[in-house]
């Protein structure tokens, strides 16, 4: 299971980097989203993955063995990271909208007005 997810993460990174290198700003932004999800999956994977294991145990329940448990901390971290990337996604889309309104272009090569000629 871990191996499959690891390969999947690698593919996501490849897609993300490919999209980042495109000239269109929309594709660039999609690339950022893909990269952020790939990174979240890395954290998720770092705690190890167990099928049908449980994280939290009630007080009355008998002790669960450590082997059958998944580490709950990375999942909490991923939640935090997802919330952060949600906020950033909202901001980045608003920025794109505003930029398009001002300039009417999707082309990254047009981003050179502020450079020294």
């Amino acid at each position, binding site marked *: 299971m871990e191996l499959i997810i690891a390969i999947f993460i690698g593919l996501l990174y490849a897609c993300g980097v490919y999209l980042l290198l495109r000239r269109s700003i929309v594709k660039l932004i999609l690339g*950022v989203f893909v*990269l952020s999800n790939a990174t979240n999956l*890395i954290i998720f994977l770092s705690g190890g993955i167990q099928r049908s294991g449980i994280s939290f145990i009630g007080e009355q329940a008998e002790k669960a063995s450590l082997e059958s448990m998944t580490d709950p901390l990375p999942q909490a971290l991923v939640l935090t990271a997802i919330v952060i990337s949600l906020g*950033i996604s909202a*901001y980045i889309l608003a920025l794109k909208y*505003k*930029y398009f309104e001002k300039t009417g272009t999707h082309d990254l090569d047009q981003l050179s*007005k502020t*450079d020294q000629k």
Partner: protein
Amino acid sequence: MIVSLPVFLPLAFMIFAFLFRHYHGREYVAVGAAALNLAVSVILVLKTGSEGMLKVQMGNWPAPYGITLVADRFSAMMVLVAAIVFLATMAFSVHALDVKRKRFGFYLFAFGILMGVNGSFLAGDVFNLYVWFEVMLMASFILMSHGGERNQLEGSVKYLILNLISSFFFVAGIGLLYGKLGTLNMADIAAKLMEFDTMPPEINPAFILIFVGFAIKGALVPFFFWLPASYHTPPPVVTALFAGLLTKVGIYSLIRFYTLFLHQHGEFWQPLILWVAGLSMVIGVITATSQFDFRKVLSFHIISQVGYVVMGLGLFTVAGLGGAIYFLAHNMISKTNAFLVAGYVHRRKGTLSLKTLGNFYKEHPLWSVFFFISAFSLAGLPPLSGFIGKYLLIKAGIEAEYMGIALTALFVGFFTLFSMVKIWMEVFWKVEPENKKIKQRNLTNKADLKQSAAWMTWASGGMALVIVLGGVFATPIVEYCTQAAESLMSPQLYIDFVLN
């Protein structure tokens, strides 16, 4: 309690600022809150000076499990300098910033930056550090594009994308680190690493990812491109705030990580850090000489000066680290003040292009003195604070027998002087070239010209005074920095303090 205040105070301001519907009240409350933050950080410095380290366990969870805030001398000093920079920029903005930006929450996001910066200085937990980074970045993204001018949006796109990528590097590194060591508390990670005789090879990739993240944030060679591409686009007061605080947080984190974790694998990291430092110094300063925009010259100098700090870290001696800490503090203040002067020039002339400026010394002699003090402090002229910083670093380099890097630092100093003299000649001494286009541009901000600039003068003058005092009365500050460096050099102290 005092440790959590620098984080809590900006948050409280952000909530209470909504009560002040009129922006006019809000700006004075902002200056007041910034002054309060300065008072808190002075107390923090005095307390860490006498007790060494302070900590708070959030929610009373014991150390490796809960979130810890730790203040040692180094972080307390950084919180203090950040508070000085922040107070100056807030006071400056009262008269410098346009009404529209003030009305639409400039102060909210500025305090968001302060909260993120203070939080990163005090974080004792790797993931918590990441979250504070994001708080800081989110607020800075908004300030960068705040106002929605075309140039700003263009700068924001570059700034945003590259900083997000640095965050991905950092988080991916944290994920791998947690997978290998099973802990996120910095002290606990350091303790676990110490159990190994040699650093196991599978841990290094995590640290390399984290290092790249910090290097992008701190604008080190070869990851500095976002900085000069974006720092000259927002209003000058925003640039001053960014230049004083943002890259320095990346460098602070690098110093923290190196002294706690990376030095245990010193034979790999030390040459790397020294090379990065030397290249940053040289490339930053050489590219700065070819620029013809006031703020772009200063932006490229940020890269060069960050190189000095990293050089002190790379030497990894008490003298080197002490010099690096002093230099970092000096640089935050001098650099911010140089940008504040740029803000004043922009207010009076309506442009920051060196070719079209001139005559400033004749028209505004007081501001020329402010610029002289901060620019020549950056270049390292005695008795200003920059001289002490460079002297400490170069002396430490020679003592540690790293002659190459010490000579590079000396050599770079000349180029710094060159570009500061260039700005001085072009903006302050040269006779202003006659040009119809410029005259027109001046007329467009005629309303600005009439406005009072008293708060701007007080803010920049105060910073200039701090620079002079920091150089003249350097002895107690250098002593404090050396003590901070000593406690950084013995990570066992930090580990024992946090875990017990």
